[in-house]
């Protein structure tokens, strides 16, 4: 299978030299990549990491000749096996792409053409580059599908993309990328759109493929945990420049550049001490082109000196075969990123002397297939939430964890009566919330708010920030303009935004700033409870840390209760007091976070926890092998909803009977047929968890 090597091992497969790229638009020219050099040796996987806007994808696009009309390579060479790609004609270049260079992109759902079968699309490069006939290609396609871990390659090859799950589609795309036995792969955030358990399997697959075929790859990602698992070396991009490179283990365990230090420090860590603020990087991302005579990170760097502001930094060799764009990196070697632990204010403890703030009983939601007046257009509904019950105390943070399609957002919206539940009851401070909302009880509405995932879509693009925040104030009777303006200013500073932002429109703000506005708007009606629906998921790591800190601060000072919906275990373990784990609309496990992270585990929770990509930290023991689940998700009624993917399925009892809820210590409850004692015997996923 291995392609014969036609270049000496000393020649890098990909050698990018001093690449500088700009985008031109009606708004002027913007530098996207500044003087980036990197070399990838045969068989080596290099991670290119950075936050949004750092230029990481632009580098990948330049190699693939996909910059588009606006993107211009100003200087630099892109050498593939010694040939400068920029000197090739369009035809010669096309012959290389898809043949010697394969690519896998972020979104499998849009990367496949819905009008062709998966098999046809995998065969395309074979026919185009290898001169196969359609009949010759068919057996090779099945071989490829088997290679990427698809069980029934024949059937899948004849399927259309919409018939496959996201994980299967991404496997098919990987099969396409490796169909012509390339020497080199470009992987641009290939798992970002996938669930954690699926992501774990795809990463495993990519690692084994690269290993088996001695494939070199450029892996573009924002997720340090995945880079840690897959890449031998790493390039950290910031503000269009490379700020640090080196071997992955070295860089992640012992970062030298201040930005890398901050980035790693700002990641919520599952095994870290809880109830502390996350270290964060102040400010927002700058651009190298905007600051030609200063270090690009100077504005946000805690170690900044006058010398940093007067001179652009060059990439220099520092100790341990690593390059760093910081003149004082040697001096900073031991300096840790400053923590803000001292800023944490005393928390108002969750009060339990009264009844819980929120009681949810037997919540069900079935979505209609189609409520048409025409009988043949009516279809049976989909069960999104099935008899879920839980409580939230005052001042408590309840985490709700699940994968896409698990019904977690539906639960969040149902208890706020944005979606009418099919059955069940939501009691808010003794009152029936759904009934109250239906009758237009604004005071009840006022007390429960929502912060959305998409900070842009949740603000009206035609209203200023001030108007958005002022509206709830108007509704609660604050009609006097001057008092209202003062209150808006107070709320803006409360969420850490300058007061003059009241005049701005949402599109003039960054994602993190918009999310602050959303929080300010939610706070305006002085709620007691806020549903955070993936409120930090779309944000970059450094921004996410800031928003998480803000939310913790508000919880501590105002005694707010949150229902924190997320798919990110690290975030939930940082902020939640108690956690619900949900799968296919039913509750698998519930308990205090400390209990959830330790055995006994529900088999699903165990797989979910083991799939979380983590950073190796000094003193970590050997990693526990990951539990890999099947791709398919079966949610037929009767029996346990997880049985189709369960690695510990017991047999017929799982198919026939709904699992019993077993209670362990501290209100830790698990819905599973396996006895508690047996579940408790599982090896801990995080042996390094602080006691």
């Amino acid at each position: 299978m291995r392609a014969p090597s036609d270049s000496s091992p000393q020649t890098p497969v990909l050698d990018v030299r001093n690449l500088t790229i700009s985008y031109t638009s009606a708004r002027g020219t913007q530098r996207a990549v500044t003087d980036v050099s990197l070399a990838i040796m045969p068989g080596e996987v290099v991670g290119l990491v950075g936050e949004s806007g750092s230029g990481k994808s632009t580098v990948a696009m330049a190699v693939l000749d996909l910059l588009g009309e606006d993107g211009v390579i100003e200087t630099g060479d892109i050498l593939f096996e010694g040939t400068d790609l920029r000197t090739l004609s369009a035809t010669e270049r096309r012959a290389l792409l898809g043949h010697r260079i394969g690519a896998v992109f972020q979104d499998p759902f849009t990367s496949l053409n819905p009008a062709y079968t998966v098999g046809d699309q995998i065969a395309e490069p074979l026919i185009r580059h290898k001169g196969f006939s359609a009949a010759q290609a068919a057996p090779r396609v099945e071989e490829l599908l088997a290679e990427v871990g698809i069980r029934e390659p024949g059937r899948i090859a004849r399927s259309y993309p919409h018939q496959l799950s996201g994980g299967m589609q991404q496997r098919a795309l990987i099969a396409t990328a490796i169909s012509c036995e390339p020497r080199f792969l470009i992987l641009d955030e290939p798992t970002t759109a996938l669930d954690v358990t699926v992501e774990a399997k795809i990463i495993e697959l990519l690692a084994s493929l690269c290993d088996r075929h001695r494939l070199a790859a450029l892996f573009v990602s924002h997720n340090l945990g995945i880079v840690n698992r897959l890449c031998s070396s790493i390039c950290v991009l910031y503000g269009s420049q490379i700020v640090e490179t080196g071997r992955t283990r070295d860089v992640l365990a012992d970062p030298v550049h201040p930005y890398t230090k901050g980035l790693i420090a700002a990641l919520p860590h599952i095994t870290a001490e809880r109830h502390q603020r996350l270290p964060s990087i102040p400010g927002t991302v700058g651009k190298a082109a905007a600051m030609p005579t200063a270090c690009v990170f100077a504005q946000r760097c805690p170690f900044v000196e006058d010398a940093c502001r007067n001179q652009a930094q060059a990439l220099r060799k520092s100790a341990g075969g690593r390059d760093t764009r910081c003149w004082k990196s040697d001096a900073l070697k031991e300096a840790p990123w400053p923590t803000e632990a001292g800023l944490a204010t005393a928390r108002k403890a969750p009060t339990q002397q009264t009844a819980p703030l929120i009681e949810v009983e037997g919540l069900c939601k079935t979505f209609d297939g189609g409520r048409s007046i025409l009988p043949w257009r009516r279809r049976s509904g989909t069960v999104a939430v099935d008899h879920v019950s839980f409580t939230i105390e005052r001042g408590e943070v309840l985490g709700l964890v699940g994968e896409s399609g698990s019904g977690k957002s539906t639960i969040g919206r149902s208890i706020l009566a944005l979606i009418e539940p099919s059955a069940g009851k939501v009691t808010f401070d003794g009152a029936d919330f759904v009934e109250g909302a239906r009758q237009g009880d604004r005071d009840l509405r006022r007390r429960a708010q929502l912060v959305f995932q998409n900070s842009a879509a949740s603000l009206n693009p035609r209203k200023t920030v001030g108007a958005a925040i002022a509206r709830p104030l108007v509704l609660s009777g604050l009609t006097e303009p001057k008092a209202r303006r003062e209150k808006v200013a107070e709320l803006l500073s409360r969420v850490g935004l300058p007061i003059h932002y009241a005049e701005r429109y949402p599109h003039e703000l960054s994602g993190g700033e918009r999310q602050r506005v959303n929080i300010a708007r939610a706070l305006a009606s002085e709620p007691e409870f806020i549903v955070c629906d993936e409120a930090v998921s779309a944000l970059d790591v450094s921004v996410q840390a800031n928003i998480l800190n803000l939310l913790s601060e508000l919880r501590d000072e105002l005694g707010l209760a949150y229902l924190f919906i997320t798919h990110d275990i690290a975030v939930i373990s940082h902020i939640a007091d108690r956690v619900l784990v949900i799968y296919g609309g039913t509750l698998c496990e519930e308990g205090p976070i400390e209990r959830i992270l330790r055995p006994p585990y529900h088999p699903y929770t165990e797989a979910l926890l083991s799939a979380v990509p983590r950073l190796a930290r000094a003193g970590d023991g050997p990693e526990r092998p990951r539990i890999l689940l099947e791709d398919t998700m079966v949610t037929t009624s009767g029996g346990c909803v997880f049985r189709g993917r369960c690695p510990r399925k017991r047999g017929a009892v799982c198919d026939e009977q709904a699992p019993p809820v077993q209670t362990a210590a501290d209100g830790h409850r698990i819905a599973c047929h396996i006895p508690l004692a047996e579940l408790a015997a599982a090896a801990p996923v995080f042996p390094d968890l602080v006691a």
Partner: protein
Amino acid sequence: MAAASPSASSPARWPLSLWIGMAMLAPLILVAVGGPAVAPYVYDEMNFLARLQPPGPDFWCGTDEFGRDVFSRTLVGTRESLIMGFSATLISLVIGMPLGLIAGYKRGRIEELIMRASDVLLSFPPILLGILVLAVTPPALWKAIVAIGIVYAPQVVRVTRAITLELMQEEFIEAARLRGESARYVLFSEILPNIWPPLAVETSLRIVFAILLGAALSFIGMGAQPPSSDWGLMIAEARPFVEQAPWIALCPGFALAVTVIGINLLGDGLRAVLDPRNTGRH
């Protein structure tokens, strides 16, 4: 840093199409306002000594079969054509926008009712509907305007409903419902400001269709009546003389073309200017 973006109304950023569109329409609007005052001759004054004169220094665009100055008639006709286009479109908007908003917001039976009714109207060719409305009573310009307004209302309904449906999915509408806002507030304060820009673009195209339909109706004698100098009517009257004196038809035809192209360019330019995402970041 989120730099304060240059505002949408900064003319330096307006696209070329907007400028050309405005340059084409500005003289037309001036002429429409000036009306008979700017015309070199009285538009309906006959001069039997100068029938069917070709274009020359006395009559820039020649004369028609009654010796009326074609250039003056075309100038005077501008007012009628533009009034026809704008007021018919206004009527379409007044009828169509509320119906579209209600259909998109309320959904269910009301939506079905509104949409099926407009489907029925849409299934007839506009000219036929125009004739239907006008045929029962003696023709007059205002009737033609109302007829065109009604005929094109379903298009406005469709566009408004489509945008409303899209907006209803947005989270800021959910946020409004979460505050317990009334339907009226959601419709007028959250949705309407976002409907306006795409609708303005659509509307500019509707004006073109209205002018063309008006001309067509006048052409078949259902709109403006002689001795009016409506462009459609002028072209109709020029028909018997097309070989002999093509200028009688060409002059209003050219004016019609300039109007249509001008408004189209303007609409195109507006689309770019009014989209808030085209201004600052993103």
